[in-house]
């Protein structure tokens, strides 16, 4: 059967009409903040990046949601599980199809972009004082002075070291600034016939973006201005933070090729690094993989001018377009309560966001989590601009161009600043 020109054009026209109609009905922009008054009832969806696997599902649905339903029996919660890496895709496809979840978990740095575009609803300020939070912990939950999310779990980037290697090298104490770090790292590096078998310092086993940010903050640098419209990291502090890694690679005390590979114990555990940047969840990994090293690994917070610990984490927020705002609000409040926060933290080895929980058995039994809580006053977060989702994807590959020697640290930071300025100009 020949497909006539007329029928082809008709099909294209119908398709175009469908596409345009589809675009016109999907975005939440301009919708008013969901009114949380009214009866707490309805079917709500919860996009969750925290509880993974069958154990996580049992914890969330068999325990937490059950307790929630004891108080709010008329709310039916359907959970959409995802992992943190796929959270973006889930949210994007949900928004594009008009199926934004009623309650959603978001990462640190995500609040300004979503709040700027009215995708999430502001929360009452009273929720910020309902429990005790470090002010730094609440910072990423805010945009334009309003609270948009409740922090649940924190994931901090700290420095871990092998006490036995330090002892062998005759080193006492931990480095207090970058000069000392370099000195320690040189002493701790081990080579065998020209080949490095142990680097003094491994900054590359965590995301390069987060590692660089930690050092930027520790060097009194900033990412963006308070209103998120001006790039501040293209400063001498920003360049110096990246240059430090290059200098350490040049003197052999760090190696870009020597980092933790997917699915393997960390370089610290394998003995191929003496000091490394890591996450507080390392303690759980130690207990599972190398319990004999648990007492041999210590932690410290490093800074050049100010000790700084990068604080990532996951927050819970309410959609601005939910049909059941009262139910969604009640669920957000519940997931931000100590019961839910403690359980979520325990199953991931994360830091509970509520300071009241520092005396819990979980925190007392996890030295790295306890360490992170004790140092929350030094915590700094990434993000701070509505253009963050676009900028953050470009940071690692741009910094890597300097790490692999394609360009200087200054050129890489300048390039990144250009990218960030372009993204901000499109707001």
């Amino acid at each position, binding site marked *: 059967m020949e497909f006539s020109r007329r029928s082809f054009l008709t099909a294209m026209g119908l398709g*175009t009409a469908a596409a345009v109609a589809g675009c016109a009905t999907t*975005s939440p922009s301009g919708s008013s903040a969901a009114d949380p008054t009214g009866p707490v009832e309805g079917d709500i969806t919860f996009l969750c990046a925290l509880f993974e696997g069958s154990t996580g599902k049992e914890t969330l649905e068999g325990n937490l949601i059950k307790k929630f339903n004891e108080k709010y029996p008329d709310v039916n919660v359907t959970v959409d599980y995802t992992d943190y890496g796929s959270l973006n895709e889930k949210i994007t496809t949900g928004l594009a199809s008009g199926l934004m979840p009623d309650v959603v978990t978001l990462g640190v740095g995500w609040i300004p972009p979503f709040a700027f575009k009215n995708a999430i609803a502001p929360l009452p300020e009273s929720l910020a004082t309902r429990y005790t939070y470090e002010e730094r912990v609440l910072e990423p939950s805010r945009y334009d002075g309003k609270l948009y999310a409740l922090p649940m779990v924190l994931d901090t980037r700290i420095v871990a070291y092998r006490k036995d290697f330090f002892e062998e090298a005759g080193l006492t104490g931990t480095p207090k600034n970058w000069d000392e770090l370099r000195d320690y790292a040189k002493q701790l590096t081990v080579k065998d016939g020209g080949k490095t078998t142990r680097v003094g310092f491994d900054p590359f086993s965590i995301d390069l973006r987060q590692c660089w940010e930690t050092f930027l903050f520790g060097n009194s640098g900033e990412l963006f201005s308070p209103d998120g419209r001006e790039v501040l990291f293209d400063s001498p502090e920003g360049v110096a933070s990246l240059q430090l890694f290059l200098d350490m690679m040049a003197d052999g005390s760090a190696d870009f090729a*020597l980092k933790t590979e997917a699915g393997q114990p960390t370089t610290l555990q394998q003995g191929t690094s003496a000091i490394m940047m890591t996450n507080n969840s390392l303690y759980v990994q130690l207990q599972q993989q190398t319990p004999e090293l648990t007492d041999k690994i210590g932690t410290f917070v490093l800074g050049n001018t100010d000790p700084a610990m990068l604080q990532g984490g996951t927050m819970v927020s309410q959609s601005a377009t939910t049909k059941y705002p009262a139910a969604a609000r009640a669920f957000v409040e519940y997931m931000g309560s100590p019961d839910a926060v403690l359980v979520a933290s325990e199953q991931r080895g994360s830091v509970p966001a509520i300071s009241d929980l520092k005396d819990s058995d979980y925190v007392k039994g996890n030295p790295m989590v306890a360490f992170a809580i004790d140092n929350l006053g030094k915590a700094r977060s990434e993000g701070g601009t509505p253009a963050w989702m*676009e900028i953050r*994807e470009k940071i*690692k*590959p741009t910094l890597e*161009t300097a790490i692999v020697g394609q360009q200087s640290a200054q050129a890489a930071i300048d390039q990144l600043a250009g990218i960030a300025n372009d993204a901000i100009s499109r707001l």
Partner: protein
Amino acid sequence: MAVVSAPRDVSAPPAVPPRSPAPRRRRAGAARRRAGMLMVAPAFLHALIWIGIPVIAAFVLSFTNYDVLTQPRFNGIQNYVDALTDPVFRRGMLNTLVYAFFTVPVAMGIALLIALMLDTQLRARALFRTAVFIPQVTATIAVALVWLWIYDPRNGLLNAVLGFFGIPAQNWLSSTTWAMPSVIAVGIWQGIGLKMLIYLAALQSLPKDVYEAASVDGASKTRQFFSITLPLLKPATFFVFVTSVISAFQAFDLIYILTDGGPANTTTMMTYEIYKSAFREFRVGYACAQSIILFVFLLLLTLANRRLNGGDSGRH
């Protein structure tokens, strides 16, 4: 007296206009057309809904700043300008071309070789065929995870084997020199199976008498391969080439698992940039423009190949 009338002019009978088909035949023709349309309708609807509409939507959205969080706003050709001037996307285009340039002909060559070997009375042919085809049907994520281990600079199989021969270990996926060749190697390895099957099927359908005649004429096996086999395999080669190029241009999951586009964008591809733009940066309009650019790339390549090969009939 008999009247002799003038002889009648015996001429050809007047032209009779063709009789239109009988109403019964006309109804039968219309019925066949309707039946044909009904049979094609499901596939046509499927193509329209799942391919046609998304393609049109992508084209329309590529002229907007759509970010799924707000209503799309028309911004002309800005997305195309941004994409074509973005050094990272341009790097992705180059990497995609390099990847396709190496994976397609190499995999096709190896696949043809294996197909030729399997097109003989080889024992356990089925076993070899299965072994070669298994990577094609294995989930790419599983393939990539295994290769991550093979490429591990400290504990990986490849460096261990190289070390046995005294060759120094390499940082395969962290090196700007070796990352792309490492990804290409996996792409070739995984893509051989299907190509081999297509070539094998084509080889088994070639006429035997041509070879017999060539043998009688004294043509060697090599001569027969180049003068008979290869030309007769042109339709299959065209099909394998087009599908391989499209597949190479759509390489995504290998990059996602093996290198995340790094180090320093040395292995990023157009598809990976499109994914990042849409799903990580929320720049869906921009991602649509990148997709259209990719589409144009593939269209031009397909047309060029068709022209060079005289289409799938092998005619010039």
